[in-house]
C-alpha cells in the first residue's frame, strides 16, 4: 500500500511542477520571434544606410550632379533647419488635417453605402455599373472642378480625398458584406435575431477584414488626393511647398518634403495596422 502511494505522490508532484518541455517550447518560441525581428530590423536599416551612403558617395565623387539629385547630407540639413525654425509645421498640419478629415469622412460614407448596397440585391445590381465606372475614373481629373467649386482652401483637397477614399472603401465594404458566409446569416436567423441584429452582429463583423483592406488603401489614397490637390493649386500644404521648391530648383527641399510625407504615410499605416490587429484578434 505504502510504496504505491509514494509513487503516486511523486508522479503527481512531477506533473504539478512546471512542465519542462512546455517551458522550453515557450521560451524557444520567444527566442525565435526576437531573432526573426532582429534579422528583419537590422536588414531594413542596413539597406537604408547603404543606399544613403551610396547616394552620398556618388554625388561627392562627382559621378552624379548635386544640382539635380541633391544628397543625403543636404536633405538632412534642410530638415534639421525646418525643424529648428518650424517653417514647415503649418504646411504639415494642413496636409495632415486634410488627409485625416478626407479619410474619416470618405471611409464612414464608404462603409455605410457599401454595407447598405450589399443588403439589397436589386439596389446592388442597379448601382453596380455606376460604382464601377466612378471608381475607375481617374479622380485627380476632378481637381479643377473641385477648385472651382470649393476654392483654394482646405475643402477642395478634402473633396478630392473623399472622392478617392469613398469608392475604394465602399467597394471593399460591399464585397465583404456579400462574402459573409450564408451559414452565419442562417445561424442568426435561427437564433431569433431581427434583421437589424443580423446586420449589426453578423454582416458588420463579418465584413471587417474586407473593410480593413479598403481602409488601408483609403489612407494612402487620401494622402495622395490631398497632396495632388495642393500641387495643382492651394494656399498652403506640403504639396504647395513641394511645387514651389521644385520650381525654384531646391532639390534638397523637394526630397525633404518627400521624407516628411513618407513619415506621415508610415505613421498612418502603423495606426491602421494596430487598429486592425485589435479588431481581428480572432484570426
Amino acid at each position: 500500500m505504502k510504496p504505491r502511494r509514494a509513487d503516486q505522490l511523486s508522479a503527481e508532484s512531477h506533473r504539478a511542477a512546471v512542465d519542462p518541455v512546455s517551458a522550453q517550447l515557450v521560451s524557444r518560441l520567444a527566442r525565435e520571434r526576437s531573432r526573426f525581428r532582429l534579422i528583419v530590423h537590422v536588414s531594413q536599416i542596413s539597406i537604408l544606410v547603404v543606399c544613403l551612403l551610396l547616394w552620398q558617395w556618388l554625388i561627392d565623387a562627382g559621378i552624379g550632379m548635386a544640382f539635380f539629385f541633391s544628397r543625403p547630407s543636404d536633405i538632412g540639413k534642410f530638415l534639421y533647419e525646418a525643424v529648428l525654425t518650424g517653417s514647415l509645421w503649418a504646411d504639415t498640419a494642413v496636409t495632415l488635417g486634410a488627409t485625416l478629415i478626407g479619410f474619416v469622412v470618405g471611409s464612414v460614407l464608404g462603409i455605410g453605402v457599401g454595407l447598405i448596397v450589399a443588403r439589397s440585391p436589386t439596389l446592388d445590381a442597379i448601382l453596380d455599373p455606376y460604382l464601377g465606372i466612378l471608381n475607375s475614373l481617374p479622380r485627380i481629373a476632378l481637381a479643377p472642378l473641385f477648385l472651382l467649386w470649393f476654392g483654394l482652401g482646405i475643402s477642395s483637397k478634402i473633396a478630392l480625398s473623399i472622392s478617392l477614399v469613398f469608392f475604394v472603401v465602399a467597394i471593399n465594404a460591399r464585397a465583404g458584406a456579400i462574402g459573409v458566409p450564408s451559414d452565419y446569416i442562417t445561424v442568426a436567423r435561427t437564433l431569433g435575431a431581427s434583421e437589424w441584429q443580423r446586420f449589426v452582429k453578423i454582416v458588420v463583423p463579418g465584413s471587417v477584414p474586407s473593410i480593413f483592406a479598403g481602409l488601408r488603401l483609403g489612407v494612402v489614397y487620401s494622402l495622395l488626393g490631398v497632396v495632388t490637390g495642393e500641387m495643382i493649386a492651394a494656399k498652403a500644404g506640403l504639396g504647395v511647398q513641394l511645387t514651389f521648391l521644385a520650381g525654384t530648383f531646391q532639390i534638397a527641399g523637394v526630397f525633404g518634403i518627400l521624407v516628411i510625407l513618407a513619415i506621415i504615410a508610415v505613421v498612418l499605416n502603423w495606426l491602421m495596422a494596430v487598429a486592425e490587429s485589435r479588431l481581428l484578434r480572432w484570426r
Partner: protein
Amino acid sequence: MLTTIPGPCYAQLNERLVASIEESVTAVSSPISPGTHDSLDVAAKRLRALSAAHSSGSQGKPAIRLDGVTHYFVSQNQAARVVDDISFEMPAGQFLAIVGPSGCGKTTVLNMIAGLVSPSVGHVWRNGSPVAETGRDIGYMLARDSLLPWRTAQANIEMGLEVRDVPRASRRVTAERLLNALSLRGLGELYPSQLSQGMRQRVALARTLAYEPAFLLMDEPFAALDAQTRLMVQAEFIRVWEGTGTSVVFVTHDLEEAVVLADRVMVFSARPARILLDIMVPLTRPRSVESARYGEEFDRTHREIWRHLRDEVVRASA
C-alpha cells in the same frame, strides 16, 4: 414504466397520466428514496410541460404539423422534386428522429419546419400557427458547426441570449453552466479556430440549448464527434432535455443514435423524400443512453428500421 403515449388519443391519455403521476408523487414524496423520487419528478415535470403546451391556447393542437408538404428546388431549366407529399403530426415534447439515404431531403424538411425554406406545396404548422419566418421558439443546429469565428466560444454560446436582451451577468451564468455540462470548462475564452472539431460541435450545441427553445431542430448534430465524446454528449443532451418538455426533430445517419435517443423514428425514402416507416421506440423514459442499446426492444426496433432503410440506400445509390 412512465413513457409518454403518443398517437391520436395522446392528449387525453397524457392528462390522465399527469394526474396519476402527480398523485403518486405527492403520495410517496416523503418516504421514498431520493433516486426514485428524482426520476418520478423528472417524468412528472416533463408531462406537466407537455400538458401545459397542450392547454396553452392551442388545445389539442400538435406541436408540429406537416400537411401535404412537397418541395421543388427550382433552377433555370428544371424544377427538381426533393420532398414528396409528406404529412405528419408531432405532439409537444416528443423526440422524433428522421433517418434516410444521403441526399433524400431530410435537411430540406428540417429547414421547412424551421421556417428557413417554405414548401412549394402544402403547409407547415408550429404550435398551431403556420410557419412563416424562423421565429424565436426554435433552436437549430446545422450539420456544419458554423460558429461565428470572430466570437469566443463563450460569446458564441451567449449569442441567442444577447439577441433576446438577456443581461450580461445572467448570460455569463448560463454559458458557464453549459460549458461545464458539456466538458468545455475553461475553453470559453478561445476562438473557434483554436478549438478541435468536437469542441466546436459541443459549443454549437451549447449555443442552441442556451436560450431554452421550445423546439430543437437538429441536423446530424453529433456526426462530427468521435465515438466516445458522442456517447458522453448524447447522455448529457438527453439528461438536459428530459426535464424540459422540448419537442425535438433530430436528423441522423446513425440508426443506433436514432433508436437510443428518440421516442419515434421516421425513415425517409430516397429522393424525393416520402415517409417509408414511422414507428415508436418502445424504450422507457428517463432513459440511460448507455444501457438503452442493450436489450431485445432495441434490437427489434433497430432491425425494423434497417430493414426499411437498406433497400432505400441500395436504391438511392443505384
